[in-house]
């Protein structure tokens, strides 16, 4: 390994990247853009469901019932209507995704102790959303019913409301969410997006930079020189790893400042893990570039190889532990899962190498393995 030659290659890469506007955008703008788009777009919380009310009773009780929904942060009130057909119209246009129909004689029947059913219409286009919305409806309804019961018990027995409540509800559940105290999906999503962005952007850059040389024929400068294989690979990977490390900090800052995700862990641990991961992902790009000969092929294959397994097996959307047995096994063959553990752990749990040393080790193995495979695959004397 001769440092001067590695430096020559790395410096050349750096100059080309910073002077080619497209490459520059790809290197620095794309990751930040990705983070913004997915950070805001991939929010899985179901909140502010737009809804309308058809109140056919017009009594104090019916108004109180509907206020329970209007005041909830899960629902966003869009108005009252007088006609069931108007609800239909709003639902089809997706102006609202839920509707509450309070029947006539609502107050009267409740007062008389008769059971009443309130009809709720839910947009079932996205079953997951509809399910969650149904949960909210049931919960709000339950709370209302319980309050009625508490009222009834305390009134009939002449007790204070607090005492009445204790009789009606002798057992309560106290849930405390750990790590992501407010259970915001942003908090769990954004750290994983740091992983996703690095996983896609850095192999792309590395792959294109090598294949570009193959396409123009400048790779023959490398082939015909005394530059060794290792020096070439090092010279190619270093500038792109450096660019990715800059991006690590940009993404970190975005997570903390733009998405307000708390960072509870050790910066050093996070940084070392990120560096290993960047070498893995740039290594994937390098491998792809050694196998194909056009930029178009490099682009497509990198996208497929880097993106699909990352979306499926990294724990980005679905935790690895809830995947099927086969998928869980596959997840272990990609570096993304280990790094996801490291980023999420660093941000939300505040854990470090004492807990995640295995993930760290796995990344190191991947980085070294990738380098060795690239070294084996690259030949300065190809047969075509």
């Amino acid at each position, binding site marked *: 390994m001769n440092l001067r*030659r590695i430096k*020559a290659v790395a410096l050349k890469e750096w100059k080309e990247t910073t*002077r080619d506007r497209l490459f520059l955008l790809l290197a620095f703008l794309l990751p930040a853009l990705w983070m913004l788009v997915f950070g805001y777009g991939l929010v899985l919380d179901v909140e502010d469901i737009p809804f309308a009310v058809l109140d056919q009773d017009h009594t104090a009780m019916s108004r109180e019932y509907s206020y329970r929904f209007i005041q909830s942060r899960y629902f966003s009130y869009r108005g009252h209507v007088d006609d069931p057909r108007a609800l239909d119209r709003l639902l089809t246009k997706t102006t609202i995704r839920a509707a509450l129909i309070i029947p006539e004689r609502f107050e009267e029947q409740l007062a008389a102790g008769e059971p009443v059913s309130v009809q709720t219409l839910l947009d079932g286009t996205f079953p997951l959303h509809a399910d969650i919305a149904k949960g909210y409806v049931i919960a709000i309804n339950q709370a209302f019913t319980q309050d009625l019961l508490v009222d009834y018990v305390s009134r009939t027995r002449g007790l204070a409301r607090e005492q009445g409540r204790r009789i009606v509800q002798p057992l309560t559940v106290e849930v405390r969410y750990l790590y992501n105290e407010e259970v915001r999906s942003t908090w769990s999503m954004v750290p994983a997006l740091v992983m996703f962005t690095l996983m896609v952007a850095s192999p792309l850059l590395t792959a294109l930079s090598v294949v570009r040389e193959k396409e123009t024929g400048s790779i*023959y400068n*490398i082939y015909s020189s005394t530059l060794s294989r290792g020096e070439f690979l090092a010279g190619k990977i270093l500038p792109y790893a450096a660019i990715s490390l800059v991006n690590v900090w940009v993404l970190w800052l975005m997570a903390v400042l733009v998405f307000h995700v708390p960072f509870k862990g050790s910066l050093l641990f996070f940084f070392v893990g990120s560096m290993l991961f960047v070498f893995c992902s740039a290594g994937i790009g390098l491998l792809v570039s050694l196998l194909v000969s056009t930029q178009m092929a490099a682009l497509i294959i990198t996208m497929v190889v880097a993106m699909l397994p990352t979306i499926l097996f990294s724990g980005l959307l679905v935790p690895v532990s809830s995947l099927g047995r086969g998928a869980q096994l596959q997840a272990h063959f990609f570096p993304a899962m280990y790094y996801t553990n490291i980023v999420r752990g660093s941000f939300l749990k505040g854990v470090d190498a004492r807990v995640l040393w295995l993930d760290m080790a796995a990344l190191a193995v991947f980085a070294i393995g990738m380098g060795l495979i690239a070294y084996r695959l690259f030949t300065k004397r190809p047969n075509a």
Partner: protein
Amino acid sequence: MDEAVITQESPIIRVSGFIKRYKRQVVVNGVDLTIRKGEIYGLIGPDGAGKSSLMKAIAGVLSYEGGMVEVFGTLIDSERAAERVKQRLGFLPQGLGLNLYPDLSVEENIDFFARLRLVPEQELTERKARLLGITRLEKFRDRPMRNLSGGMKQKLGLICTLIHEPELAILDEPTTGVDPVSRRDFWAILTEWQQAKGMTVLVSTAYMDEAVRFHRLSFLSRGRVLASGSPEEIQSLSPGLVITFESTPQLDAVGRLKTRYAQVETLGPSLHVFTPETDPSTALGEIRNTLSGLPVERVQIDEPELEDVVVSLLLQEQQNRIDGQAGSADPRSNASAPQSNGIAVEARELVRDFGAFRAVDRVSFVVKQGEIFGLLGANGAGKTTVIKMLTGILPPTGGDGWVAGEDMRRAAGAIKERIGYMSQAFSLYLDLTVIENIRLFAGIYGLDQRQTRWRMEWIIGMAGLTGYEADRTGRLPMGVRQRLALGCALVHEPRVLFLDEPTSGVDPIGRRRFWEMLARLAREDGVAILVTTHYMSEAEHCDRLGLMHAGRLVADGSPADLKRRLEQDMGPLLEIATDQPGRALAKLSASGMAQATLSETKIHVLSLDPGRDEARIRTVLTGCGIRVEAVRTRQPSLEDVFVSRVRALEEEAQNGAPA
């Protein structure tokens, strides 16, 4: 060169029984080669002859399937073995400037190559200064490589290859697509460096006329060596004479000559015949007999050029193969050329800007019906842009043009129906057969079934495609493909034909046959043909020529006119043969003859006072110990015309105001 010294050294490169396969396709099949220290060794051959594969294998950047390659006494059979010799060699891959880095400046490019080779910084500074000096790139040190002209890119490529002072330089088609001025420059620089450093050079070219620059050469065709030796040795392989004369009617004359001679070419009004007969009067007598009564005028008898020899070698090789020989069907005897003097194409002050860059600058010319007009110039001179404007593909920034009677600004649609266009990039569908391609083009132009059948027959006959009808186009040899492309461009019987570099990459025989077809189209069918090329030798086929340089039309006229005008302006051409052409040129330039150029191995000087200049040249050269072998006056070639016109223009640009 001193033969005795050379032969005693062991060879630098030894190749024997070399075989290279890509998948199942054999591209080089048993090549032997020995290159000695201090030689400039040339590989000549058309595209696909196997030159690049051979050179890459020698440079150690391509593995091979059979035979052996030895460089500096090391058998190159593995990556490890190849690494051992790489510090001692420099390799310039094919493609003008493609191996350079467009975003890096001239200097950064050089530095990169030097640092890859671990050239010490101090030596780098010195060498860089020297190389930038002799290539006159000093001024452009900081310019990004992407903004260099073709000739400058090529020189930068050479600097980058030589910066670590290799003992062996392997240059793959360094001059393809570069204008003649830059080409001459390139050879001068290379020769000077080679002599100063005692470097060995292996270089390939597609230009037959560069062969004379090599000490020894091999002609490759279809992966085999057809002939090897010094230029003189190759020339002697096929002795004979080349007889150039005029005869009318030209087509009848060609028909009759073809019954006897394998090589008959039409160059504008003249005919060019290669005869194996070596006695001039016997040869001429035979020609008169063959023509039986047709006039033979303006006779000129020459030694055959290397290209004539190679073509006759190729023809001999072809006879051993089965080949659909339908194209040489004798021309129709009732050659009543539709004599129309109508103007087919007119360009008036055409201008085209791409941003701040003016690609075409006030270009005007006229092409008559039945005329072959050649636009000649280097890559990037603006030829393709002119064609694209005239065919209505690209709107002009300024100026006017008429094609087939229509205004190109307004009637692009009508023009497209009346012209045939064959582009640089191949327009054929390689997965279709010959017949399917013709049918497709007939369909595009809306021919009905009867017309299609008729045109199909005509195209197959004209282009000599009999026997190839059902073949997949991708499998056809380059020359045949090119003829099919021409046929397809003619399917709707256009009166005007635009051809954009139709013969790049085609072997000499293929090129000649192609030009034969063009001559027939122009003479018999009265089609106006506008063709671009960067082969100077092809330009002789045109009736009229426009020389383009840096977007401008530098000169316009028939080849003979252009030569005559040059002689009028600058005097006759002195051709000086010496034993050390590289040094001699440097000495002459230093003594005030700035316009002296190296053409092949001889020095060319245009002189208004030949007597006095000859004496001066002899004094200067003998004074430096250079032996002057011969000085004679001769007619300038088209290349001389081009070079001196461009030089004059460059000087004018430097002096600021036009003279």
